[in-house]
């Protein structure tokens, strides 16, 4: 269709119609001048646009709603975290004394959680509370383990992961202890609770939502 | 899933008076077998073999019994069968013994065996007929109860009734 419109008139037709076909350049110039003269409301660019834009709307289309882009604060992904060593304690910071205030804080937190932690309070209630509590800052001791060399390790819990506890010992050493196959003892104001690590393999954030089952074997 | 395999013991109940055979039913046979098992193999053997033990088929006219048991312990039941000396029914005791004809893995092989066995028996017995009338009477009775279509395959009456 387009080709037909743009095609030059045959020479014999010129004679019949009494018009002279313009050269291509001349024709273009003519068209722009013509349009400019008639469509005074539009700027030259817009006209140009119309001439160039050849899409023809044949049916009704709804106007697209512009979706608002929610801007997320993009954090670091796991790989970047690993590379930057964000969660790794620097060797110069692996000091037991540095974490003592954290331990004091934790004790305060547990006392608040258990309504004061009186000596006559029900151990079962405390256990229920402890189950959902956060243990960062607690003094953990490995009471039982399948691997004998872990047994007896004591220190402040500095980091809890899904499968391991990272604790810092009195000798300022950072120890990574797998939760599986070990039993940990937590002492607070005379109450000693045992944590069966194999049943505790969760992140601390997930644990607060988890329902612990009473059943099941607690054998290592 | 693994199929629980069974063994089927095809037995013939031998009694002195064939009219006593009509007293047979599943319960009496099963009871007799259980007693024999306890006698032969004690509580231990009984407990081992009693699961899955059942009387699958019983023909009171011909005295054919099909017992089903677990494959793992069928020897216990098999060896206990000779210890059955009589069947008790409503205080009446019928002296008998069990003759184990065939041990099969499926009911179908037992059935096939029974057909073959009975044909064999028929061929063995026929020459013993005294007169021609007897022989034709037997032939007639055999033909009357067989399925017409494959009359030569099924030659004994209890076969047609098998499941």
């Amino acid at each position, binding site marked *: 269709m387009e080709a037909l419109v743009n095609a030059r008139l045959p020479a014999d037709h010129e004679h019949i119609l009494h018009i002279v076909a313009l050269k291509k350049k001349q024709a273009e110039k003519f068209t722009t001048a013509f349009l400019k003269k008639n469509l005074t409301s539009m700027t030259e660019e817009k006209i140009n646009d119309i001439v160039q834009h050849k899409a023809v709307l044949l049916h009704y289309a709804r106007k697209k709603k512009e979706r608002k882009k929610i801007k997320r604060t993009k954090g670091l992904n796991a790989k970047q975290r690993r590379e930057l060593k964000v969660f790794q304690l620097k060797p110069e910071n692996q000091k037991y004394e540095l974490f003592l205030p954290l331990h004091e804080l934790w004790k305060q937190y547990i006392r608040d959680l258990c309504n004061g932690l009186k000596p006559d309070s029900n151990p079962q209630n405390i256990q229920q509370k402890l189950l959902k509590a956060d243990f960062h800052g607690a003094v953990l001791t490995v009471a039982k383990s399948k691997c004998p060399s872990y047994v007896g390790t004591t220190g402040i819990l500095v980091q809890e992961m899904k499968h391991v506890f990272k604790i810092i010992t009195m000798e300022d050493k950072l120890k990574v202890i797998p939760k599986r196959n070990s039993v940990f003892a937590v002492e607070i104001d005379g109450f000693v609770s045992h944590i069966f690590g194999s049943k505790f393999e969760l992140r601390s954030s997930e644990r607060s939502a988890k329902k612990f089952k009473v059943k099941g074997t607690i054998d290592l | 899933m693994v199929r629980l395999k069974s063994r089927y013991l095809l037995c013939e109940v031998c009694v002195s008076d064939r009219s006593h055979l009509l007293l047979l039913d599943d319960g009496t046979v099963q009871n007799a077998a259980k007693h024999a098992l306890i006698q032969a193999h004690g*509580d231990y053997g009984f407990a081992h073999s009693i699961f899955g033990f059942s009387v699958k088929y019983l023909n009171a006219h011909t005295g054919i019994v099909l017992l089903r048991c677990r494959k793992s312990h069928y020897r216990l039941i098999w060896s*206990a069968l000779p210890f059955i000396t009589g069947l008790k029914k409503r205080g009446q005791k019928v002296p008998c013994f069990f003759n184990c004809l065939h041990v099969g893995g499926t009911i179908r092989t037992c059935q096939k065996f029974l057909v073959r066995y009975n044909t064999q028996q028929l061929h063995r017995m026929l020459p013993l007929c005294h007169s021609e009338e007897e022989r034709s009477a037997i032939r007639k009775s055999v033909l009357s109860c067989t399925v017409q279509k494959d009359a030569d395959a099924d030659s004994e009456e209890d076969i047609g009734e098998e499941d």
Partner: protein
Amino acid sequence: MDRGAKVFGALGQRLYSNRMRRAAKKEEPATYERLVYKNTSVYHYMSISLEFENEETLSPAQLKQFIVNGLKDIYGEVGGAFPFDLLKFDELKLTAILRVYNSGLVKLWSALTLLSSFDQERCAVRVNQERCAVRVNQVSPFLLALSGNSRELELH
């Protein structure tokens, strides 16, 4: 039963005839030989003691019959039919030593454990059931080992 014997240092001992050895005034010193037997003993020995609810006396034959009956209860005529010996029975202490083939050990042991009542015909009419239990003190493939039971060592 694998009674396979491994011979480590066998030397040609049997080459010497018996007569030759007798002729020599002093016998030749034995050469080193080592044999390792696995499951060499065809028997197992059990030392048991009986405990009755009331005071009871019984003869060795009665005891053996009692055990045979127990075996028959559990394993029946077929399974319970295996030989065993009552080597010794102390009628005062009610202790006994049994000897049984290896193949019958498990059966005998389990039958002994499950024995619980002792039938004794006191009068001609009444059958008295006496509760009793059998304690298995020691089981060993060597009869010699039964005489050295260190668990019986009592010191005060």
